[in-house]
Structure formats: C-alpha cells, structure tokens
C-alpha cells in the first residue's frame, strides 16, 4: 500500500512537465533540488547526528565541477556532473577525517568556516573564473532538467531508505545516540562518519551540477551560499530528521510556502519567512511528520504540549 502510494506520487511528479504549466516546472526543479539537498543532509545530519553546515561546500564543488568542465574544458554535461561529484567526494574523504573529530556546535562552526573559506578560495582561482564566475552554455530543456532533478531525488531517497534499513545505518544511528558506546560495540566510527559524509557529498554535488547548467551563470557567492545550507537544515529538521521521507516533505512544504509568499506578498515575503521558521520550531520542534501523529493524538493541545516540554 505504502509502496503503491509512493510509486503513484513519483509518477504524478514525473508527469508535471507535461501538464503545461512551466512555472510549476521551474518551481519543481528548484523544490526537487532542495529536497535532494535536504535528503543528502539527512544522511550526515539526521542519521549520524552531525549538523553539517558544510554541505554547501559539496554543492558548490558540484556547481563548479560542472561549470569548469563545460565552460572551460568544453566537455559534455555528464562529464561535468562526474567531475563535480568526484571533487566533492574527494573533499569529503580528505577533510572528513579531521573535521568529524569535532562534536556538536564545534563541528557545525568548523563546517560553516569551511564553506566561507571555500568561497574565498574559488574567488581567487583563475580556472573558476575568479569572483566574476563562469557562464555556461544556454540549454532550453526545462523538462530534462526537471526529470533529472526528480531522478536524483528518487536516487537519494532510495539511498536513504537503504541506509535506514541497513547495518550501516544502524551504526550511524548508534553514533548519533552515543558515540563512545558505538565505538565500544565495535562500530568503526571514523569510517562510518566519513562514509556518511561522502554519500551526502556526492548527491549534493550532482544537485549543484544540475542547478549550474539550468541557471547558466555561477559565482562563488551563489555556489557556496551558507543560507542555502541553512535552508537544507531547516527543511530536513522541519520535515523530520532521521526519517526517510521527512526531509522531502519538509522541502516541498517550505519551498511552496516561500514561493507563494514571494509571488503573492512579494516584499513582505522576506520577513514572513523568518516568522514562519521561528513559529514552526517553537510549536513543532520535532518536525512535520511528528505534527501529523501529534495532531491525531492530541488535537490542538499538541502545540501547547511541545512548548511545555521544551521550555526552560
């Protein structure tokens, strides 16, 4: 039943480009890529419990991999995606070991620093077009971009589903719950954590590559955008971190909210988005999926209970 519903949802999503509403397709590309990013973050942030603010580094490397391959080396798009994914994976493997020794907010801050430093490094690189960025060839294929993004999201979600049900995933959850205990139980924590980071890196990078080709112009500020990273985290946390579908639901919902705000309220949108985030965290700190269960169980009292449980 669940499988059937999922298959139907994917089929429905896949048919969107043929419904004749191109704004919806553009919105879809954006929402699908954001969902992919939230889902990739879920592997390291949700399952492993390492709140990464460096996933925008991987996204940015994917962006630049594609842009450098296409604009500078004149290689095809697929080669660009491969180059970006390889760069991101290498970065995760090399930097993962020292960075993943840090815990809690220190890990978060180190990854945040990494993303700021990376933007500055790329703005000095000749092959990356320095700070003025690179222009990719124009390609009129919105349907292809959409279907690619959808395929990527499905692949990412399938990977997360596999993680959730595998020994590997159990190891990650053990690390999240108590890293010392996991180590005692025989989990090779360093290898597990680095592997989780690398998985997140590859999917984020491919998302970055698709986005680069779609938007046609990239620069360090847009490639290594830390607010994008905050968005991934919010979407994953909003939906329900450490679950298989939560981040996707969170990403779709929040994308729709912010897009509607931007097109209906326009100038008020910026402030409203902040308010939505604040209220959402205060009243539903365990995400949308929990909200569904909570509302059925307790009705409106669910919100008051949340506040009571988590306040000082």
């Amino acid at each position, binding site marked *: 039943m669940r499988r059937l519903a999922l298959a139907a*949802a994917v089929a429905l999503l896949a048919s969107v480009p043929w419904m004749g509403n191109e704004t919806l397709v553009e919105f879809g590309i954006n929402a699908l890529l954001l969902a992919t990013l939230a889902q990739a973050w879920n592997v390291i942030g949700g399952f492993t419990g390492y709140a990464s603010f460096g996933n925008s580094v991987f996204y940015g490397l994917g962006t630049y991999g594609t842009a450098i391959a296409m604009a500078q080396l004149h290689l095809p798009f697929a080669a660009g995606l491969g180059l970006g994914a390889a760069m991101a994976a290498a970065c995760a493997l090399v930097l993962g070991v020292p960075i993943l020794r840090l815990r809690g907010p220190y890990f978060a801050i180190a990854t945040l620093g990494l993303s700021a430093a990376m933007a500055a490094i790329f*703005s000095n690189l000749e092959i990356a077009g*320095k700070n003025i960025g690179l222009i990719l060839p124009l390609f009129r294929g919105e349907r292809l971009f959409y279907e690619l993004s959808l395929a990527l999201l499905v692949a990412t979600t399938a990977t997360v589903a596999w993680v959730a049900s595998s020994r590997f995933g159990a190891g990650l959850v053990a690390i999240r719950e108590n890293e010392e205990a996991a180590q005692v139980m025989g989990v090779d924590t360093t290898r597990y954590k680095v592997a989780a980071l690398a998985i997140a890196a590859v999917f984020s990078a491919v998302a970055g590559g698709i986005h680069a080709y779609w938007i046609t*112009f990239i620069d360090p500020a847009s490639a290594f955008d830390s607010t994008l990273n905050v968005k991934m985290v919010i979407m994953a946390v909003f939906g329900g971190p450490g679950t298989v579908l939560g981040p996707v639901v969170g990403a*779709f919902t929040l994308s729709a909210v912010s897009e509607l705000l931007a097109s209906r309220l326009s100038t008020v*949108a910026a402030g409203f988005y902040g308010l939505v985030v604040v209220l959402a965290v205060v009243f539903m700190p365990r995400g949308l999926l929990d909200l569904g269960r909570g509302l059925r169980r307790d009705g409106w009292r669910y919100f008051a209970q949340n506040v009571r449980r988590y306040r000082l």
Partner: protein
Amino acid sequence: MRSTHTLLMAAALLLAGPVRAEDSITLGAAVQLTGALANTGRYYRDGYQLAVDQINAKGGVAVGGKKLRLALKLYDSQSDVNLGVRQYVQLVRQDKVNFLLGPFASNDALDDSSVAEKYQIPMVQGGGASSQIFSRGYRYVFGTLPPAEDYFASTIAALGKLTPKARTVALVSADDSFDVSVAKGTRQLVAAAGLELVVDKQYPEHNAEFSSILSLIKSKDPDVILWSGHEPQALNFIRQAKTLGVSPKLLYSFTVGVPTADFRKALGKDANYACGMTPWLPSKARRDDWFGDGEAFAAQYHQRFGYAPDYHAASAVADVEAFAKAIEAAGSLDPGKVRDALARVDFASLYGRVKFGANGQIAMPQTVIQIQDDKVVPIFTDTFVGKPLFPLPPWDKR
C-alpha cells in the same frame, strides 16, 4: 500521502495565476526591494513605475491604430539571484508578461537576462553594465548603461587637461563582474594616457575594511585614486581615508555613490571634493517625448518618491521608453518583431540618445562630476563644463 497532498496544494495555488487583460502591455521585472541591494534597487522600482504611469497619462502606446496602456508587474527578488531567476520565469510563463525589464547590478542581470534569451522575450535592462552580459551573443538582451570598461575614460581625459599634471595612479577595485570590467578598461586607459599605475589592488565585493589598502596608498603617495565598487564600500573608503589621513595629491574618483543623494547625506561634508561620473544629469537640454525634459522628470520623481533620482532611475525610465518606441515601430506585440525594432531604435530621451550597439549595449559618454558644497557639479564632458576643485586639499586643510 502527505507529500503528494502538499504538492498538489502548491500546484493548485501556483496555477491560479492572474490573467492579463488584452488591452494592455505588461512589462515584468524582479527587482531587489529588500536585502543587500535594496538601497539601489528602489531606483528601478520607482523609475519603472513613474515611466509607465507617465506614458499612460500621455495616452499610452499606439499599436495597430489602437492605444494600449502599459502595465507593470514587479516582484521583489530579495537580493537573491536564484529567486530572481525563478521570478523571471514566472513572469514569462505564468504571468505572461509581454516584455521584460531588468534588475539592478551586473551579477543579477547576467542570470536574469538568460531567462529572456531562453524564452526569447526581449529584455531591456538598465542595471548591468558589465561586458560579460553583452559578450554572450544573446539576441534578446539590451542594456542602457554604458560599458563598464569606459567609466573612467572621461575622468582620465580631464586629467590630461588639468595642471598640475597627474603622473601616478592608484587603482582600487572590487572583484565582481562590473568592477572587474571597469578595472580592465581602466588599466588600458591609464597606460594609454602615459600614467603610471603605482597601486593596483582588488578587494572582495562586500568588504568593509580598507585600512590596509589605504596605508599602502599612503606609502606610495599617488596623484590620483581611481576607485570602483558598490556604494556602501565607497562610503567606507572615504571615511577610513579620513581617519587615516590618506588623500591623493590631485584627485580621487569613484564609479558609484557620488551622484546619489543618499551617499552625500551619509557622508556630510566629507563627501566634498569626491569626483565621480554619470551618464546622466537632470538637464533641460535632454528633451523627452513624455516627461518634457530631464529636469522636469527629476522634479516629478522627487515630488512623488521623496528623494532625487540619479542615473539608475533615468536608465530605468529609458528602458520603459525604449519598449514604447520599439512597440510603436513594430506595430505589434510579437516578441520577435519588437526585438528587431529594439535593435533599430534611435531616439532622444531624458536619459540621452537611446541607440543599442550590435551587442545590445548602449554607448554613452560619462560626465565627470564632483561634489562641491554638498551639491553635484558637472565638470567635464569632452570639454570643461564646470570648474573643478583641483588639486584636492589634504583632510586637515578642508
């Protein structure tokens, strides 16, 4: 499934877009009304709005024997380039606007104009001057800011005619698209004029700290400082120059800030002596079919919005007027025909002569201006039109 449900809801809401009335021509734009670039973005919002209203007040645009009204559809891109691109797609595909106006700043214009090219809807943008925008071989993108490379051309020409003669130059520029173009052009202009470049430093676009560059400049003691970047940075550069007592021997000039009221207000009397350039000044000599002339436009703008327009606003008006002219010439709202008509327009406006080159960019001389006694004074076009305060006195003698 909750996810499907959410998506369908979003889809339903997005599908219910407004329907365009048939007897009007809609121009669409996504402009930075909030966020880091809101400060300059408002010139485009207000310029577009005023031009649309004025053209309507004068009877609208004649197409095939019928007078059509102009309408404006504006989104706030929140200074977010990615959002801006999506809003342009929305303007084209959902709001079905007829034509596109641009955002502020070269980086935004680069991205947003690719939407125009992708959907083959003409865009006239008055906010991006970088050569990057016009070197892509795009056919549907036009620009009313003159090329960034030539921003300092008139300033350097003026220096050649002033005594004492300038010999050494410090060039300070930001690393974004527009300013890199400015720096590239300026290096050639400096060399061609036989001047020596003693400092050539690039700083990150959103940098606030100039003390190191200023100390370096002080140690080289150049005759001239040529500075390129965004307005907030120009402000900091001048303030920090004062606190460190750094002043060039003859003159300093800035690509931005000097023409805008906001800049002079924030700096007070420290803004005096700063030179800059503008392709536009509110002048009676610039005749306009809708506003009368540049001065009348400036007065009307100031009265309506409560602050004085600068060249950004005038450039925005020229964008709307270019469409009005091109649509009348094409006698049609067909994007391809209007595009061809845009490539051929040639008219006098309050902004100046609007005529696009083969790459889509306008060519216009820059007037050298200087702030004297809190007022912007035109100094030099190809001859002197005003008296410069020259050479620049050191800070303690001002």
